[in-house]
């Protein structure tokens, strides 16, 4: 009877171990080495178990590997990204697509609040939010204050501006800033231009 119980336990352990091996991402040990890959895999597995997208975590780790970053810094950066993904999911809901969560995590990195994420979601119900969140973050990178960028993106998404127009807005702001315009003025002016076109019915279809 004892041997039967031992065999059952061994079977259970083997199933768990083999299942874990089967779920491992082969890209991680190839680029990071076994030890660092194992630490990253723990974070990836916990994200998967929580219903979060895992590919951004793997890509962040691979980016760190290509840049020859110290292992501890890679692990910490991936862990931080996982926390932002979880915060975005908590703010936007469990059914939020992975692309939206990934962009929302970038917006949080830029300093956006979860309340801003929720307001933008409410302003654009049932439609993808990945691009508005990402453009918000990239406007901050251009030097636009996060509160201004958030307010502009909320107004633009509420008005039904398309993803293509939002991406175009970012490029125009970048050009204006490089030409010497203050970032906030550039973003505000360009956003007003887009909203005026929307008012005249001249915007790209969503």
């Amino acid at each position: 009877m004892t041997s039967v119980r031992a065999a059952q336990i061994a079977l259970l352990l083997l199933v768990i171990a083999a299942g874990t091996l089967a779920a491992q991402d082969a890209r991680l040990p190839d680029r990071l080495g076994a030890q660092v890959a194992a630490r990253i895999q723990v974070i990836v597995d916990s994200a998967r178990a929580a219903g979060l997208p895992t590919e951004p975590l793997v890509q962040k780790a691979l980016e760190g590997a290509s840049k020859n970053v110290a292992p501890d810094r890679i692990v910490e950066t991936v862990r931080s990204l996982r926390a932002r993904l979880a915060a975005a999911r908590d703010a936007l809901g469990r059914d939020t697509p992975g692309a939206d969560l990934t962009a929302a995590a970038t917006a949080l990195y830029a300093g956006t609040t979860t309340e801003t994420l929720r307001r933008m979601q409410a302003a654009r119900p049932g439609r993808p939010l990945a691009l508005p969140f990402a453009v918000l973050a990239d406007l901050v990178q251009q030097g636009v204050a996060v509160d201004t960028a958030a307010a502009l993106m909320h107004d633009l998404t509420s008005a039904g501006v398309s993803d293509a127009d939002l991406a175009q807005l970012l490029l125009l702001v970048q050009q204006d800033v490089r030409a010497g315009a203050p970032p906030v003025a550039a973003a505000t002016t360009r956003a007003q231009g887009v909203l005026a076109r929307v008012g005249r019915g001249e915007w790209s279809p969503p």
Partner: protein
Amino acid sequence: MTDDPTLIARVARDLSAPVPTDPRAKQAVLRAVASRRLEHGPLARAWEWLVEPRFLSVSPVAAVVVLALVAAAAVASLWGGPKALPPTRQLPVQFVLIESDARSVALVGDFNNWDPRATALAQTGEDGVWSVVVPLPPGRHRYAFVVNGGRWVPDARAPRTLEDDFGLPNSVIYVGG
């Protein structure tokens, strides 16, 4: 045609009765069949070996290992380990870097696992102009160039990304959907 049951029963009895055979003829047939089997080629013998029923002796440890592997495969497929994403529409995007002192230029980004070996740029014939066209799915992509195998260079004509967690800036491109 007849409906006589007696006649039908007699015919049936005659037809079902064993046919007397010569024992020597039977032995001759069996010998012939055995010799035909020996004449089979290796493929036929292999097929017979495969389809012939037999008992297998497996140790408990081996059985546990096999069962564990089968169960692991089932768990992995249900759990949803790393899976290939469904194919999405991709659009050709050209990346250009002007770098007069470059001997090699690679494109790295979140679309090629940041692998400097994955996407090499080619010189276009003019000094220092490097280019590559890459199919990308719609959305936002982060990328950079790697010059001469080690120097990271952002795209001067594209916005920088905010998330330079590792101290080397990346660029961002939006691909239309």
